[in-house]
Structure formats: C-alpha cells, structure tokens
C-alpha cells in the first residue's frame, strides 16, 4: 500500500513538473502577458514598469527557477489579473466545480447503470436498441451545443429552471455547496446534466458490455444452477462484477469531467475553476494556468487513489502495491 502510494506520488510529481515546464515555456512563446493588462492610456514607461513589477522582464529560465523555488514552499505564484495567490483563487472555485462534477457523476451512475443493465440483459428488445442508439447520440453531441439547447428549452422556452449561475449556497463544513438549497439545486440541475450526458452514455455502454460478458460467465450459470433468484443473480453476482470496470473507468473519467466542466461552466456561467482557466488562457494569466494544472494533477492523484481503494474493496483479487496497479 505504501509503495503503491509512493509510486503514485512519484508519477504525479513527474506530471506536475512536465506540465509546469511545458506551460511555463509555452506561454512565454505565445506572447507577452503584459499586453493583456495594460490600459490604453499607459505609455511605454508604464508598461515597462509593469513588466518589471511582474518579474516578466527577467530571462524565462530565471523566472522558472524562481517559480520552482516558491512552488516548493507551496506558493504557485500570484495571478497577474487578480493579484492574489493563484492557488487560493483555484481552491476558492474548486468546490463549485467539484460539486458539479460529482453531481454529474452521480447522474451518470444513476441513469447509466439501470439503462445499461437493461440493454445488456435484453439486447434484442426494441427498448434496448433505443437505449443504445440514445447512448451513441449522447456521446456524439458536442457538450457546448447540448448546453445551449438545454438553456433554450428548460430556461427560455419552458422557464422551469434558471439558465445560468450557481444559485444560493450554504456552507457545509466551511465549503459552500448549492445542492442543499432548493434554489441551488435548481441551478445545479441543467449544468450537471449537460456534463453528465457524455458519462451517462459511457456508463450505459460499459454496463451493457459488462453485463453481456458476465452473463455468459460460468459463475453466473453456476449461480443459476444453485437455484438463486434472478434478482439476486443480477443484483449481487452480476452487478458487483460489472461495477468493477464501471468504477475504474469512472474514476479515470472524473478527470475528463473536470476538464469538460471548462465548457459547461462557460455556457452556464458556473463559477468554477474551469471558467477561471479558460479566462486565464485567454488572458495569458500564466500563474493561474500552471496552478490549475498542478491542482488538477493533484486532484487526479487523490481521485485515483480513492478509485484504487474502492477497486480493491470491490475486487478482492486486487492487492494494492501490485505491479502496474
């Protein structure tokens, strides 16, 4: 277990370094961020002063060295546009993104598994075919397009749900969450569904494939030969086995949920870190981009650890610490 965690940490440290280097030098190549901030009335002198103040006048490797030094002390730099520690800005917006992502995940499981199970158990029925066709549609539709359609239909035309924003939040253990208030829940529904759509399709397909495969396994036949009820066979024997790939893949996909929240947050004006990133990219706010990526890697590490632990609970064959785990 400790080896396992260590291995993970070493790998992630590598990603973080790689990411930091690429982004750091890459952004340097794109352009000079200073031009993003200066106001029209400033003259060259002012601009140079700003450049100096932000440390952007020094050679890039020196800037990088400085970044590494302070990163080791937990300081990922100060946002150019916000003037606040980049890490703080990201952490401040993380709960919103995580809430969105988790809700989407929940939706993916809540819709995906039953539908996938049905499609796997009755592969030839018309309903199953419809489910599968729907799932293809689900992962073919570009997220941004679905988002605006959802707003059009549910907010503008039907007026059932609010179009954008996060709604009321309450603090849960000091973290603002919106699913505990009615208003927050209403705001959460559309973006979460938008984000979940892709994953619902994915879970449907995984569950179906898992079901189709498991159903022909000897252990299912053996369970039937024991005279177990269909409910128990599906609910325990089958489900527990197909949960393994579903959990693994969802764990891996959680990263892409967070990544795709960049799109959803933009469309739904959801105050999460994805929106922050997109704006940072547009404005070359390098500290935020770097800090975002490092945070994401960190998040992945944590999530992957959780998934692996879950995995070892679900699948007794897996022992953490084994090679390639």
């Amino acid at each position: 277990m400790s080896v396992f965690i260590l291995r993970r940490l070493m790998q992630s440290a590598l990603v973080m370094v790689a990411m930091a280097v690429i982004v750091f030098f890459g952004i340097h190549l794109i352009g000079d961020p200073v031009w993003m901030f200066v106001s029209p009335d400033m003259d060259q002198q002012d601009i140079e002063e700003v450049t100096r103040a932000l440390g952007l006048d020094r050679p890039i490797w020196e800037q990088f060295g400085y970044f590494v030094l302070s990163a080791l002390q937990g300081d990922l730099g100060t946002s150019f546009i916000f003037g606040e520690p980049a890490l703080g800005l990201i952490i401040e917006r993380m709960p919103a993104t995580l809430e969105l992502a988790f809700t989407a995940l929940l939706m993916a499981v809540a819709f995906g598994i039953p539908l996938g199970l049905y499609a796997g158990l009755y592969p030839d029925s018309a309903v199953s075919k419809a489910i599968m066709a729907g799932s293809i549609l689900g992962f073919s539709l570009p997220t941004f397009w679905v988002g605006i359609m959802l707003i059009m239909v549910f907010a503008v035309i039907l007026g059932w749900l609010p179009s954008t924003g996060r709604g009321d939040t309450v603090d849960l253990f000091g973290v603002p969450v919106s699913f505990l208030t009615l208003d927050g829940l209403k705001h959460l529904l559309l973006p979460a569904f938008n984000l979940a759509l892709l994953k619902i399709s994915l879970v449907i397909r995984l569950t179906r494939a898992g079901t189709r495969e498991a159903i022909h396994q000897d252990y299912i036949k053996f369970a039937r030969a024991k005279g177990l009820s269909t409910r128990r066979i599906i609910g325990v024997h089958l489900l527990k086995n197909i949960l393994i790939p579903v959990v693994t893949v969802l764990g891996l996909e959680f990263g892409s949920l967070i990544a795709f929240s960049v799109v959803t947050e933009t469309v739904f004006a959801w105050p999460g870190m994805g929106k922050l990133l997109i704006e940072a990219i547009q404005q070359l706010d390098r500290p935020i981009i770097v800090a975002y990526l490092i945070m994401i890697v960190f998040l992945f590490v944590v999530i992957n650890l959780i998934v692996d632990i879950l995995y070892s609970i679900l699948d007794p064959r897996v022992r953490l610490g084994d090679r390639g785990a």
Partner: protein
Amino acid sequence: MAVTDAGKTSPIEAAPLPAPPAEAPLKRFLSDFADSRLALGAALLLAAIMIVAFLAPVIAPQDPYDLATVSVLDARLPPGTENFAGYTHWLGTDGAGRDLLSAILYGLRISISVGLASGVIALFVGMAVGLVAAYVGGRTEGLIMRVVDLQLSFPAVLVALILLAILGKGIDKIVIALVVAQWAYYARTVRASALVERRREYVEAAQSLGLSHARIIFRHILPNCLAPLIVVGTVQTAHAIALEATLSFLGVGLPQTEPSLGLLIANGFEYMISGKYWISVFPGLALLLTIVSINMVGDQLRDVLNPRLQK
C-alpha cells in the same frame, strides 16, 4: 534425406482430410457487419458524407473561402432566399454571407480531414510506440508506459486546449494538438493487444523459425492488433471531430475564414436565441450525422471484430 523428395510417396494417408467449407474472411466480415441494418445504414451514410465532403470543391455551389465571392451583403439570409445574383441559398447564409450549404460541405471536408489526419498520425505514432513497448518489454516498456499513463491521466480537451493556446490557430496546429491528445489511446490499445498476441504461440513459432524482430513485429503481431486499433480509431476519429468543434467553440482552433463544422456551429451559436437557427442548426446536424454514423460504424466494428463476441 531431403524432405522434399519424400512428399509424394508419403505413407501417411492416402486421402488428405477434408476441411470445413472455405469462406473468405472479407466476405464473412462484410456479412457480419451487415447484420445490423442500422450500422449498414450508418456506413452508407458515412460513405456518402465522405464522398460529398471530399467532392466539396466540385459540387458546392459557392467557394466559401474565396472572399471575392462572399459578401456580407448576403449575410444571414434565411434558407431558400435568393440572393442578388439570383442564386438560391437552400440552407441560408451565415453571418459572413457564406452560402451555408457550401460552407457545410467545405466544413465537413475540414472536420473530416482534421479528424482523419489526426487519427491516422496518432494511430501511427501510438502504434509504433505501443508495439515497441509490448515487444521489447522491460525497462523500455516501463518508461514508455509511464509516459502513456501521464498522457492519459490528462483529459484530451485540456491537453488540446493548452497546446492550442501555445501553438496558435491553424489546421496544422489543431492536428498536432489532437495527435498529442490522442496518441496515447492508440499506444495503450496496441500495447494491450500486442501483449496478448506476443504470448501467443505463433509468435514463439516465428521466433524459433529464426525470423527477424522487425518481421515478427510488423508481419505477425501487428496485423493481429489491428482489429481493436480500427475500433479505437473510428471512435477516436469521431472524438477528434467533436473535440475540434469544442475547441473552436472555446475560441482556440481553426481560422475563422475557413470554418470547420465546429466553427460554423460556434459562430452560429450566437444566433441561436435570435431565431436564426439555420446558421448553427444545419452545421450541427451535419456534425451530428457524421459523428453518429462514425460511432455507429465503430460500434458495429467492435462487435464484429471482437473475437469474444463472435459466435
């Protein structure tokens, strides 16, 4: 004693054994594929889309990239409007006055080219890397797979987003970004199946027959890894097309005067609420049809090519 001489007088069996009826693999594959009406329809549709897309310069009524023929005067005409030159825009025009039908055809061409180009390059890169990793094993494999893992642990959108922010716009840039975002999927797929294939006895047979490593990798192992690769390839191509659309929507990606489908949609997106639905709905439909048909074909390929589901 020479083996060859003995052949005719072999005492073993007078009448060689009969074999099961021969059936060409291609034919079997096609008939299996055609099993699903839906998939067949999707394949035909996809073929049609591809043909239309690549013939765009021939069949499109207008060259939407030629600024001399496009005029803002014609901007945002609803479907079926005749323009001043007396030409009817069946699908209307977009915000810059491009004939939408033509723009969609050209856009399809770009989207599909981007998808295919990035898919093919990523496939080759991933394939080479994955095969080498699986065949060589040991430290090399460990190192390669760590890199693949790193790449995979980062969602493709983010990779492409950051990369494009760094590289700038242009078809070549987006292809590069998509290749970087995708090669690892292929590498992983190839490696997984190559690992399985490498343990197959026919590989050992080839080794003991003294065949070269290159020959074993490319003539023996590779062809047997193609099936999952093709499946991943189709899905990834669809994915690449959608990804390109998303990136265009996010404002990185392609130059706006030569819009891909994604960019057409993104541009039309701002007209959604104003009721000028056609600017984004028609390209959206084209994109949807393309991606859905590719995915359906991929789905069926998966079923047909998956040996476990056969029979």
